[in-house]
């Protein structure tokens, strides 16, 4: 691996950044967050349409099915931009975990239909892993699943129980979805109740691989949010005047920003590398994805808190909207294992 981004990867990042900077204003964020807070889907449909045209949901899907056929590192780079923008669109489940799971399944007919629909932005998939309150009987699934990612506006749900993935249609009878009020009001989290709903099993899909991919996708968004928070802090500190000079001229504020930078850079490199390794060196991917999410989560906690502190009272209000990025980092931390859990796995994996 060349340890920095290729020209193509940089172009992808810049294209998404340009689009997101134009479209995801603080007004858009507030409007969609109000929906999310009310337990509705926070996805901005117009934005989703735009990003679909840029290839967002098809990033990891083979070009035979209308996707871009790119790799996890490209998905990381895009996820980072989504995090930087606090974009109100689904990502980890719909654009990463579901396409990978379906691609990995043995039934090629499934590939064709579903992947084509996902790449076209028409099929949106909420995903739940380790849903152990589900039972499957003669092709029908019943029970409960909590913490279903990207559940708002989903047309399908991909549910893993007992090591097997099942796809169900969101509009089938017997599907009851309640959206939680998520801590990040721009992402969505659902609670599903299922009553003998027809379910299509996917065979041969590795739960571990899908989990790794999900962790990397969450970490990518978190480091993107951190980049924004650092930039915003440096900028605010240059503008805000107290005691007759910009607060950024005070050593305390300077050092807070320096520490944010020091935590951010290694986390970015590690998350990129986890994306690279996921495709290129599957044997090292389990460890690397754990390390990457654990580090990104901790950087996220430190940087988001410190950014609020640099902004003082203004960071605590909604006036600058900083808390949306704070909440993205905190939300991601709690899903697919918090750092305390991940670190135990890291150590155990190495026989410690």
């Amino acid at each position: 691996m060349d340890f920095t981004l290729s020209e193509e990867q940089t172009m992808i990042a810049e294209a998404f950044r340009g689009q997101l900077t134009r479209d995801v204003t603080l007004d858009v964020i507030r409007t969609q967050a109000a929906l999310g807070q009310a337990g509705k889907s926070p996805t901005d449909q117009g934005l989703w349409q735009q990003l679909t045209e840029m290839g967002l949901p098809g990033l990891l899907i083979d070009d035979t099915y209308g996707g871009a056929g790119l790799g996890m590192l490209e998905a990381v780079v895009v996820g980072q931009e989504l995090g930087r923008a606090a974009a109100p669109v689904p990502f980890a489940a719909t654009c990463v975990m579901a396409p990978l799971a379906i691609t990995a399944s043995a039934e090629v007919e499934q590939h064709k239909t579903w992947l084509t629909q996902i790449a076209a932005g028409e099929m949106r998939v909420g995903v739940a892993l380790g849903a152990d309150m589900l039972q499957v009987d003669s092709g029908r699934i019943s029970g409960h699943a909590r913490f279903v990612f990207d559940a708002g506006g989903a047309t399908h749900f991909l549910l893993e129980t007992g090591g097997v993935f099942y796809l169900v249609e969101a509009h089938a009878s017997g599907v009851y979805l309640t959206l939680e009020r998520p801590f990040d009001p721009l992402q969505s989290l659902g609670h599903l109740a299922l009553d003998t709903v027809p379910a299509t099993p996917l065979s041969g899909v590795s739960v571990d691989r899908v989990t790794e991919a999900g962790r990397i996708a969450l970490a990518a968004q978190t480091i993107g949010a951190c980049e924004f928070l650092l930039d915003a802090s440096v900028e605010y500190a240059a503008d805000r005047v107290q005691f007759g000079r910009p607060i950024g001229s005070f050593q305390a504020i300077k050092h807070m920003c320096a520490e944010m930078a020091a935590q951010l850079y290694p986390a970015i490199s590690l998350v990129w590398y986890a994306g690279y390794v996921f495709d290129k060196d599957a044997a090292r991917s389990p460890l690397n994805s754990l390390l990457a999410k654990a580090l990104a989560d901790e950087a996220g906690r430190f940087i988001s808190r410190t950014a609020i502190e640099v902004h003082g009272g203004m960071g605590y209000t909604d006036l600058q909207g900083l808390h949306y990025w704070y909440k993205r980092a905190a939300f991601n931390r709690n899903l697919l294992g918090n750092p305390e859990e991940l670190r135990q796995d890291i150590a155990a994996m190495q026989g410690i």
Partner: protein
Amino acid sequence: MRWQKLLVEHGYACRTVPAEYGGFGAEEDILKTAIISEEFFAADLPQGLNSQGISMLVPTILEHGTEAQKSAWIEKTILGEVFWCQGYSEPDAGSDLTSLKTAAVEDGDDFVINGQKIWTSSAHIAQMMFCLVRTEADAPRHAGISYMIFPVDLPGIEIRPLQTMTGHPSFNEVFLTDVRVPKTALVGDRGQGWVVANSTLKHERGMLGAAHGLAWRLSRLRDLIARQKAAGSLAMPIEVLRDRYAGLQARVEGLRLHEMRLVSMAAENQPAGTGALVCKLLGCELNHQLDILAMDLRGPESAAYNPDAELASDEIWHQLSMYDLGLIIGGGTAQIQKNIIAKRGLGMPREARRN
């Protein structure tokens, strides 16, 4: 209200307020105050109102107010019949209050006030405001600031809730446009507002504030752990959790005893020195750390958020963590606190000033 009246009558609240203004008229005795506070906490009894009016306005009026001001406001305030809000901070005067701009211009027997205040908590439920305004436009920094009290329903006052990260507008912005107040609104002399406002600080009970909230959080946390252990749903490894819990408990216990020591020192008229200055910094940080431990414990449950959660619910921790982060910033950020500890407490040399 009745409870408050009972408390005041028996000297369990506002005990040092003179009887003529509706108080108990006791000598200042910080040790007794602390004991009462501990006992009420241990018995889980509400300790009566602790509004900004009682903790800040009443001592200020007692020290600097006119007889008319004392008669008019003290009894009503300590009985909870009148609520006050504080108008100190402005958008460009947060950590640095000396740069406040809200101006009061003399006009006959009145002042006419124009400007904007921010971080005015409970302005939406208050009847009265105590406020710092600039009466001498050209005076530098501290000089030229005056302390005034007036009703918040005067013409020209607009109160707008300020949305915060918790989803609750616990603060307000207050816009003042040609607000006319009589000169009798002044507390203390004109231009002495800085001195008047700062004299309140020595009455602040903040010193004793941290320990109860921390003890409450520790006990909530212990309860949460027990329930999660029983349910097998701990989201972090048990020894790591033990380690963090016990580390925080040691720090909380240290702070609690340190505060008790400060009470003992005050009771013996020993100067508190640096010790008194570290309490806010530590208390706020520990609250936040305890909140965050609870969130980590709850794992994926913490991905959901209920802004209307009850205080007794497990869903409250997210909100507390943000509220406590706000307190780390509010009333002097942690950085300002450290400056104060270093300069006033440790006597370290002052920073270079701007050229």
